[in-house]
């Protein structure tokens, strides 16, 4: 418990660092914000209109004073107003995040429920044909870009089944759970494919390591069956690397999946950030990146707590 509090106390410091980095780097991108916002129409502006616009967005001030203003807003729960949408950044994030969270969770469930059993299966059949097939599949899954899988899925669905997944707007889970899951199932499979492949590989190698440990021999010397040896004695010891990998992947997915969102026309965080960057929506970039960084820290903390739950040596400590 003490540990969790200590970790939570470090969050503001890290987030502060992230915010400075984002704040400065987005302003270092060449080209000015007004041109990026208005496109070719920016050429029609008079210098006076230009500076009036700059004053309106507050970007005529020196960077440090812009930062301080933004920071003081942050402490009041105000992330600023998006220049693209003309709405508060926080409201936009709250609108977009459920889709991204649900997509990430569904991908992870798919990846773990396919990857772990496959990896365990391959490890117990080490170097046999079935192991080689699993390893080849995993290699294929890792090396195929997600847009290929996504396009393939859409192609097969629409050409052979005449089915087009719902696009554009997102049905939240609490409005219509079935429709919501149905809408995200194919994007989740697309994302889960490579994720599952990584999980398969890492759980296979972790299981191989564990299966040659001394306590596995001990379990066998007691007369334990192969099933008990694999699932009861070996797997709990092999899960730590799987949890580590899942945490990292899940953290990335919470930042949005740009390509898959694009292919399936989903309004997630990934496309939001992309739009914000290309159109120099400073407030939106700053807000979403900070939010994504916070999520990442939270996931990392959860991963560490999962270690504690999995391994009594961490939980209880030495003598």
């Amino acid at each position, binding site marked *: 418990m003490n540990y969790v509090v200590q970790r939570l106390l470090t969050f503001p410091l890290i987030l502060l660092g992230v915010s400075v980095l984002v704040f400065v780097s987005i302003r270092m991108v060449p080209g000015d914000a007004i041109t990026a916002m208005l496109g070719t129409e920016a050429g029609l502006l008079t210098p006076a209109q230009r500076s009036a616009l700059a004053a309106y967005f507050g970007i005529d001030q020196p960077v440090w004073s812009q930062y301080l203003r933004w920071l003081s807003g942050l402490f009041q729960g105000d992330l600023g107003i998006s220049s693209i949408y003309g709405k508060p950044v926080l409201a936009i994030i709250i609108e977009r995040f459920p889709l991204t969270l649900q997509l990430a969770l569904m991908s992870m469930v798919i990846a773990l429920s396919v990857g772990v059993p496959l990896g365990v299966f391959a490890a117990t059949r080490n170097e046999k044909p079935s192991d080689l097939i699993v390893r080849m599949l995993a290699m294929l899954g890792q090396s195929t870009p997600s847009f290929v899988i996504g396009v393939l899925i859409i192609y097969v669905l629409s050409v052979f089944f005449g089915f087009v997944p719902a696009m554009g707007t997102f049905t939240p889970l609490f409005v219509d759970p079935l429709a919501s899951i149905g809408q995200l199932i194919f994007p989740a499979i697309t994302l889960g494919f490579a994720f599952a492949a990584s999980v398969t590989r890492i759980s296979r190698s972790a299981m191989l390591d564990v299966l040659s440990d001394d*306590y596995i*021999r001990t379990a*066998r010397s*007691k007369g334990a069956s192969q099933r008990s040896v694999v699932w009861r004695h070996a797997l709990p010891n092999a899960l730590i690397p799987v949890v580590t990998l899942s945490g990292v992947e899940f953290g990335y997915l919470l930042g949005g999946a740009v390509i898959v969102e694009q292919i399936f026309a989903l309004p997630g965080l990934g496309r939001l950030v992309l739009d914000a960057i290309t159109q120099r929506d400073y407030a939106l970039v700053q807000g979403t990146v900070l939010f994504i960084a916070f999520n990442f820290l939270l996931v990392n903390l959860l991963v560490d707590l999962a270690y504690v739950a999995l391994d*009594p*040596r961490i939980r209880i400590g030495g003598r």
Partner: protein
Amino acid sequence: MTPLLSVRDLRVGFGQNPAANEVVKGVSFDLAAGETLAIVGESGSGKSVTALSVNRLVDFGGGRITNGSIILQRSDGSTLDVAKAEEKVLRTIRGRDVGMIFQEPMTSLNPVHTVGAQIEEAFKLNRGLHGAEAERAALDVLDRVRIPDAKSRLAYYPHQLSGGMRQRVMIAMALASSPRLLIADEPTTALDVTVQAQIMALLAELRAETGMSMIFITHDIGLVAGIADRIMVMQHGLAVEQNTTDAVLDNPQHDYTKHLLNAVPHFTSGKAVRADGERAATSEPIIKVDDLVVRFPVKKGLFQPKGAIHAVDGVSFDLMPGETLAIVGESGSGKSTTARAILGLVEKHRGAIAAKPGRSRRPIQMVFQDPFASLNPRLNVEALMAEPAIANGQKLDDALRDRMRFLLDRVGLPADVLNRYPHQFSGGQRQRLCIARVLMLNPDVVVLDEAVSALDVSVQARVLDLLVDLQREFSLAYLFISHDMAVVERIAHRIAVMYAGQIVEIGEARSVLSDPQHSYTKRLISAVPAIERRRQHFAIDATQVPSLVRPAGYEPPPANWREAGQDHRVRIEEAK
């Protein structure tokens, strides 16, 4: 009467072509009910593979039985040829008819399950017990292996127990189904010598209580002298000699058995100490350690006061040029920390370490325990040996290469090994390489931290001889850190016994080993297995080492010493 186990012409191979890669090459033996057979041999002799074949665990290590039979009499009276049995049948003999305990209690228990759950599993698998019944049985068997406070230990995880306790848990698990045969594969090798004595005494008592047979695998013929009925000596996959224990020990027939009995260090209570190296009272010590204290802080929590582990507490000694001072003690006694502090590898809390300016700028060098881990596998011998010299500002030139060849010759390695890599050498050769490396800078003092402990017994003997020769040739002083009394007896001029961070007894080797004064030294020495004391029996002694974690600001009471002879001092024990 048919024997419990009858092994005939057993051959076991490994790899793709097991018949061509045999590790066990035709071993036969019988084991009667209630009898204990010791299989003695060095690494690679096939002793463990032979034992693992009896319950076919060898299959999981990649081994295949290519020939022979293993006829086991089962508890229901039927007989089974284990060598040809199916995995399904084998599962019913493992645990039920044949129990097994292993060498490494640290890694042989599953770290994610409680001790209780692991013992209960054995009862569930072999006796069909469940729930509260299994728990009661587990508690009962923990009591039988003399684990104090057994009830609360059931909820412990393996990492919360000491090595000796873990090995008791292993034994408890193996006893769960009252097997008729217990295979013990080097069960005490990883343990401290006093703990080893406790486990051996426990096994002997359990054997008497249950009447089970035992196969005891070991590299230490002295260890099994007291427990075995018969001894089988193995070398290169063959049983070179087998007979009753007395016949093997008193009248060995095979050369290899004789070698194991004579050339290998066995503890003889000070009779085998070195005769050379009279201590010259006039000369100045090369290292003088005065009141050395090393502490490691422990954090207890945010608001609780901090304490410290008193790893070394007020250690003082002198090391004279050309002499060997052995520091003996068990794990956690602070002997290695003392050595590391002398080299500046750990920071000292207090005390003075004075080294007389010597022949070179780096007068103290160190050889470590594990010759496999202490040589960088990516560097060849030339680079490895050049390392200390280069670190000292010398150039890798012909003169340096000449010195390498000279030293390699001295440690018994051919000069043409300079381009080879560590994996091309055996363990003994690697340790010779490490010794040659520390001599590169022409030191006055070599600290040897368990330098022969990882080596096979006969290799150990040769490396010890080498060390003695080198000591004379280069007039080296050795600080020899070891837990092994038999090894220490062969090399030490003087011995310091460490216990719980302090020296409790120090003096001339023969005097300390033959006439120990401090209660801990006595306990340590009586725990050392010795062939000549094999008929002596020891009671189980469960004295625990006191905790070294002290509250902040704690200072130990000052040490009082008494003289127990010329150059033999003993710390006076507090009356309890």
